[in-house]
């Protein structure tokens, strides 16, 4: 993602170039995930997928402020964070296909896509599992003293795991360069959020002396601006921040849910209401109405992404399976560095 030189100025708004670039990133996530959904239902994926569709503005608006040296931790719903942080979707798709050329060699699958070279410490199948990992990475960043920052993405359901409180306390106490991004998408698995969560999640950050902000998570610019401030604080040694992004999970908790749930847990109207609040539509509407780009340019972006999706799927299909006996050798990096 291109960065402007005035990145740390407060109260900035994204440039037109940035908006366009973020639009492309959001659409990339959307189209790749739509394809993964199809692939799942076509029986092409060995495991399940949790799709991020509808939440793209959060990952993209936050990660727009990050470089490769910055780090993120993600969740079971991690494809969007992976792509937003600059991960290559091709080996990501291959990973989800369980192939040798997958970013994790087919060992991790959808819930574990990671590219450490890009600072993507990984999706995580353990709810809130990424939060303390991010705190540890933020400690490392602080010790390195070179302005790196760390973002942990987690859901509203994850906010009820105690490690959140623990990590907020440590982050505030040590003034770690860590940004907590809670994606409040309405559900904790199949439970509507308010049936499992007391009060407002962002308020839980304040007792630690941490700034906490609620943003419209379907408004790319709002997310971008909140993240701008938070990342700036973290980079300049002013400690952690908390962003709660209100958004909505358009697809099921996981694509397989229709196969095993005996009843639905939300109304079609609710989903429809949120579909009309689609973050990508909102952004493209803005791009067009502000004449930042034309319909033709958007179509060109669509076409480009469409090709990339096809290419990635073909790549994944063509990739070999990993050696069946590969796993054991991956458990340990090797003997002690010098004892051997």
């Amino acid at each position: 993602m291109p960065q402007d030189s005035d990145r740390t100025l407060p109260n900035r708004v994204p440039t037109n170039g940035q908006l366009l670039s973020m639009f492309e990133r959001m659409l990339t996530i959307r189209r790749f995930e739509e394809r993964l959904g199809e692939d799942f239902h076509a029986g092409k994926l060995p495991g399940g997928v949790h799709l991020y569709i509808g939440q793209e503005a959060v990952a993209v608006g936050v990660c727009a402020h990050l470089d490769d040296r910055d780090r993120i931790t993600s969740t079971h719903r991690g494809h969007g964070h992976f792509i937003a942080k600059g991960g290559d979707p091709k080996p990501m798709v291959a990973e989800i296909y369980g192939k040798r050329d997958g970013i994790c060699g087919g060992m991790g699958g959808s819930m574990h896509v990671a590219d450490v070279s890009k600072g993507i410490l990984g999706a995580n199948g353990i709810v809130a599992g990424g939060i303390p990992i991010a705190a540890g990475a933020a400690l490392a960043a602080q010790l390195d003293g070179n302005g790196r920052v760390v973002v942990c993405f987690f859901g509203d359901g994850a906010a009820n795991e105690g490690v959140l409180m623990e990590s907020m306390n440590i982050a505030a106490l040590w003034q770690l360069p860590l940004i907590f991004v809670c994606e409040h998408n309405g559900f904790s698995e199949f439970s509507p959020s308010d049936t499992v969560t007391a009060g407002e999640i962002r308020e839980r950050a304040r007792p630690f002396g941490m700034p906490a902000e609620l943003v419209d998570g379907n408004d790319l610019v709002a997310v971008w601006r909140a993240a701008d401030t938070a990342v700036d604080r973290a980079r300049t040694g002013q400690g952690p921040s908390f962003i709660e992004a209100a958004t909505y999970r358009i697809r099921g908790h996981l694509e397989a849910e229709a196969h095993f749930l005996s009843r639905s847990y939300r109304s079609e109207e609710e989903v429809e209401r949120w579909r009309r609040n689609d973050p990508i539509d909102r952004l493209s509407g803005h791009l067009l109405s502000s004449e930042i780009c034309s319909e033709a340019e958007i179509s060109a972006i669509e076409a480009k992404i469409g090709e990339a999706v096809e290419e990635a799927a073909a790549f994944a299909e063509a990739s070999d399976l990993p050696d069946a006996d590969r796993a054991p050798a991956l458990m340990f990096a090797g003997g002690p560095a010098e004892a051997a």
Partner: protein
Amino acid sequence: MARKRLIQAINDALHEEMARDPKVILFGEDVEISMFGDTAGLHERFGPDRVRNTPISEASLTGMAVGAATSGYRVVLHMMFANFIYTGFDAIANQMAKLRLMTGGQIELPITIVAGYGGGRSTAAQHSDTPYPLLMNLGGLNVAVPATPRDAKGLMKTAIRGRDPTVFLEAGGRGGESGEVPDEEYLTPFGEAAVGREGTDVTIVAIGSMVRPAMRAAKQLDGQGISAEVLDCRTLVPLDEDGILRSVAKTGRLVVVDEARDRCSAASHIAAVVAERGFASLAAPIRRLTVPDTAMPYAPAAEKHLLPNPEKIVVAVSALMAGSAN
């Protein structure tokens, strides 16, 4: 008798026990809608006081089970995937398994922890662990691992009516095995292995999901003129040591099939028990078929490669009979 899937049998047991005893309560993440189907219909039938969804807060849930159980309730706590037992491990290991001793026996803890375990469905490393070895080592927990719908129902009922904590692990992916379930009320005792099949040449002790491959292997072995006795542990704590020893006394050979990782597995423990108490009857080395000490990979072939299966069991038994240990 009716043919049912393992998950359905467990669901039946929960319905029956909750109807029978108003002190039985059930909670856990999304138990109302029921991800696996084992808790389906309970919320609708018994209401939100007795069946309720919880926040994702495993560390508290296991502690809460202890607190509610010390107050006269029989708690069924659903932990969804067995890996999340680790997330709530503290209160299991430091409270649930120890509190009765620490209080000098003042309390009973009628708690049943339910979770789905095991691999084979590409759920990857964080959703396919087989944690019974750890739980067995804690000392204060019963551990039930049913292989058949019949036993799943009977063991669940026994667990719920018990006076001590039981971890009940279900190999329930895609509904689990099918099998006949009696219509009438019954309880399956803890600590009694089931003889899946009688035999005279070798004893195959199998656990949970491994019983079916063991039975298949025994059938194939039969074709090769090898008579295998298959024992299904049903509970690992208490373990039917005598039953296993009796069988080995007859056959002289033991193969243990276990979906857990090898080191300090249930298979290791069963092997150790027999190497001590049944040594005199052993005519051959004790073989363990387990998962190598590896987290589960996602790619199906890589995962399958690690899991015991009928072919591996046949090879192991044949080698044992031929006098080679491989």
